[in-house]
């Protein structure tokens, strides 16, 4: 380590600094700054520099303040087992410490990996165009609404969403569409799924986009998606479907039910639980290609006519098109997309479908066990479920979650007498303990 009183990552010795200052023609570093005195700062933030070792110790102690709970939580942020391979490959410095591929001739590797990610999304959604990442499912949904507004030929200003849409997602959507003058309206749910009759009544020429999720935020699997697709066609609305990579591998293919845009959570694969850090899916049909937000990797050829990958259709983007861009998104989640792609590839189609089927089986089995406990009814919706389900409780839900937490388990309280429980292969070993804790808390 270079001995320096300053940044440990700046390599300058005192001699080098002096020589460089001399070369530039100034005496001190301060002479290089053209900052008027009235707005200059003395550098005193009061932040003590610490050694690498000290910071690692400090942060281990800090994070140890999180209770060690087994989390049966979902509602948009899911945890599947991430193979070690994903860490080891995605952590390779050439991937992790690279920038956006503005010079494709020396970034073919990342470009190919993103192209492969896009292609996997095409397989999973059945839609021919997928971008190489959005921030998360919420912002992807919001961008879908803006795309819908741009592409819709007739006027209209309403985005129809499920009344049970997760609050955070709805808030992001509202923030994004506000500037475009759109409004977000809810349609009712029927036993966890879309109330299709009510939706038919609500949809009309005002409707810019209809959004549905499969599975829903309550874990129920939708049963009439094609009808929604037809309704969207009839009303000339964009049909946007929300899902995730694991659900997509098993549930109805979005293209086959008429979805125009697919959004949702791709971070269910590749990322461990990360306090909500995400990866947004964005896939759509060819006719909306030039309205897609975010980056697209395409195939071209180099001077020797060999296949080469490159960022393409950049004229949609803000660094070219400024205020007429399809979105302001620039920095995205490319590295998370790389991780998701490696995870998908390491599962393969068999592994992925097996995983998805377990999400159905395991949720059903746990719901049945919870239902058997006095004081709980589960699942409250008479539907097939994926990963998670809602439980009615005789006791107040908040009291139950607190009791269960004291036993080492985290679950959601979503209403005064409703719990939500999510399980995956990362927690399936702990269901006995959860059932016991629920029994105690009843």
């Amino acid at each position, binding site marked *: 380590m270079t001995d*320096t009183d300053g*940044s440990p990552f700046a390599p*300058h010795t005192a001699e080098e600094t002096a*020589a*460089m*200052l001399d070369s530039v023609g100034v005496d001190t570093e*301060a002479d290089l700054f053209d*900052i*008027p005195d009235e707005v200059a*700062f003395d550098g005193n*933030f009061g932040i003590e520099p610490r050694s690498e070792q000290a910071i*690692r110790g400090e*942060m*281990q102690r*800090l*994070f140890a303040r*999180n*209770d060690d709970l087994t989390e049966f939580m979902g509602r948009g*942020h899911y945890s599947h087992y991430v193979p070690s391979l994903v860490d080891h*490959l995605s952590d*390779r410095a050439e991937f992790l*410490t690279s*920038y*956006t591929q503005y010079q494709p001739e020396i970034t073919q*590797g990342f470009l190919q*990996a*993103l192209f*492969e990610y*896009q292609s996997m999304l095409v397989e999973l959604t059945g839609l021919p165009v997928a971008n190489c990442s959005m*921030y*998360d499912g*919420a*912002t992807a949904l919001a961008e879908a609404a803006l795309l819908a507004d741009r592409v819709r030929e007739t006027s209209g200003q309403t985005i129809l969403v499920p009344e049970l849409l*997760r609050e*955070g997602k709805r808030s992001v959507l509202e923030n994004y569409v*506000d*500037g475009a003058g759109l409004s977000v309206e809810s349609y009712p749910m029927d036993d966890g799924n879309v109330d299709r009759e009510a939706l038919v009544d609500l949809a009309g020429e005002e409707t810019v986009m209809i959004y549905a999720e499969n599975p829903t935020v309550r874990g129920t699997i939708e049963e009439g998606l094609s009808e929604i697709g037809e309704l969207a066609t009839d009303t000339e609305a964009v049909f946007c479907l929300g899902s995730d990579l694991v659900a997509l*591998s*098993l549930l109805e293919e979005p293209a086959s039910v008429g979805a125009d845009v697919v959004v949702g959570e791709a971070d269910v694969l590749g990322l461990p*639980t*990360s*306090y909500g*850090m995400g990866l947004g899916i964005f896939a759509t049909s060819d006719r909306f290609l030039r309205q897609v937000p975010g980056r697209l990797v*395409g*195939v*071209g050829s*180099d001077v020797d006519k060999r296949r080469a990958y490159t960022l*393409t*259709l950049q004229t949609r983007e803000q660094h070219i*098109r400024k205020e007429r*861009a399809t979105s302001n*998104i620039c*920095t*995205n*989640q*490319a*590295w*998370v997309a790389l991780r998701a792609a490696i995870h998908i590839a390491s599962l*393969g189609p068999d592994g992925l479908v097996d995983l998805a089927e377990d999400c159905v089986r395991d949720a059903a089995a746990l719901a049945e066990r919870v239902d058997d406990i006095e004081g709980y009814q589960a699942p409250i919706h008479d539907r*097939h479920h994926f990963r998670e389900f809602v439980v009615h409780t005789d006791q107040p839900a908040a009291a139950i979650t607190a009791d269960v937490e004291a036993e080492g388990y985290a679950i959601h309280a979503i209403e005064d007498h409703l719990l939500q429980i999510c399980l995956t292969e990362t927690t399936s070993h702990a269901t006995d303990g959860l059932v016991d804790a629920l029994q105690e808390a009843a």
Partner: protein
Amino acid sequence: KHEPLLSEKDTSTVEISGKDESPLPDDLTRDYLTLPSLSEPELARHYTRLSQMNWSIDSGPYPLGSCTMKYNPKFTEDVAADPNAAIHPDRSARSAQGNLGLLHGLQEYLATIGGMDAVTLQPPAGAAGEFTGILIAKAYHEHHGNDRSEVIIPASAHGTNFATAAMAGYDVVELPSDEGGRVDLEALKAAVSDETAALMLTNPNTVGLFERDIVEIAETVHDVGGLLYYDGANLNALLGRGRPGDMGFDIMHYNVHKTFATPHGGGGPGAGPVGVVDDLAAFLPTPRVRETDDGDYERFEPAQSIGKVHGFAGNWLVVVKAYAYIARLGDAGLSDASAKAVLNANYLAEQLEMDVPYGPFHHEFAATAGDRDAADIAKRMLDFGVHPPTTKWPEMVPEAMLTEPTEIESRRTLDTLAEAFNNAYSDTDEAIETAPSRTTAGRIDQVDAARNPRLSWQALDE
């Protein structure tokens, strides 16, 4: 140097509907799924090879102007990988004191570094930070019954500023630069009005010039009731030397993947925390984190919160790394980072044969290739084993090569970089137009790739 696509190696199809043991009725499932099917050793080789066909900051210098590509300390990766921190965002506050403590700590660090009063860590990228900031400005004006329609942006600003203002529903008023490359104060005075919601400013600007008139600029905007927005892309020039809050800025975003050395991951994730002055704190996204009297941390919703700009809490892993980086540097390190970033830019510019209009610049400079094509020179630089600068931007410099070496480069590396610049610049037209020749791929036909978009392996079969 060619790696087949995963799909070209081995692909298989699983039939789903009709399977005996399916847990779902056929009408709820897809019919089949086709995906690559490879063993772990094959995948390890595939991605190892792809990585070897990729430039990175660990490969060599990466002087992309306005991108602040600095070294990403390895220990921050280990800190972020702490399994105790891998928790669900819906955790109760009482069971998530560690994560809330980190968020609170970084809010405080960023506030003091920017001279701001309150900070949100939720925006997942710089552009998302801009959007958050402009939404806050909008909410502020609306809250005061004072709807406004315009955002003023200098011509030299980042493209995201324009796109952000438009997404938020504002009309963009573009402000010309003065002869010196800075904000034209007279033009600004002419542009502001009671329709001015905000001025978005990058300082130092995108050719590295500090806006010396910043106090008067701030007064001009504030006088009409507008707000001053600081684009944090160039904050690496100012650490410990000047704080946006002290200059009159009301709102700012921080690009932690630039200034605070979190890795850029081939395009992301980054994080774009937003700081505001007291008057605007009530409008920040929800939830924020505060410390209670007994030293615990709790979430709270600001009184007039704009709501959310990310489904959960933003890019958690990234903000952890930013915290660790700031803690490592401390006061002395942060100030030194800026000092060396500015020294490196000035030293490098001194070695170049190209002209560098405008000055005195700070952490970056825009050399001009004059009557030569900046993009071609950049391609030729690839052959010399370095990454070239940002080219043809900002537009105020003809054939610009916007160069930002950052503080991490040694004099030796800067000399190598200068040699690459100079050799490419003095090379023949033919050499630069046909470059690069020593790279994984040769020059790529961008026009054809865009005209005939093939965006998936499925499209290659067509």
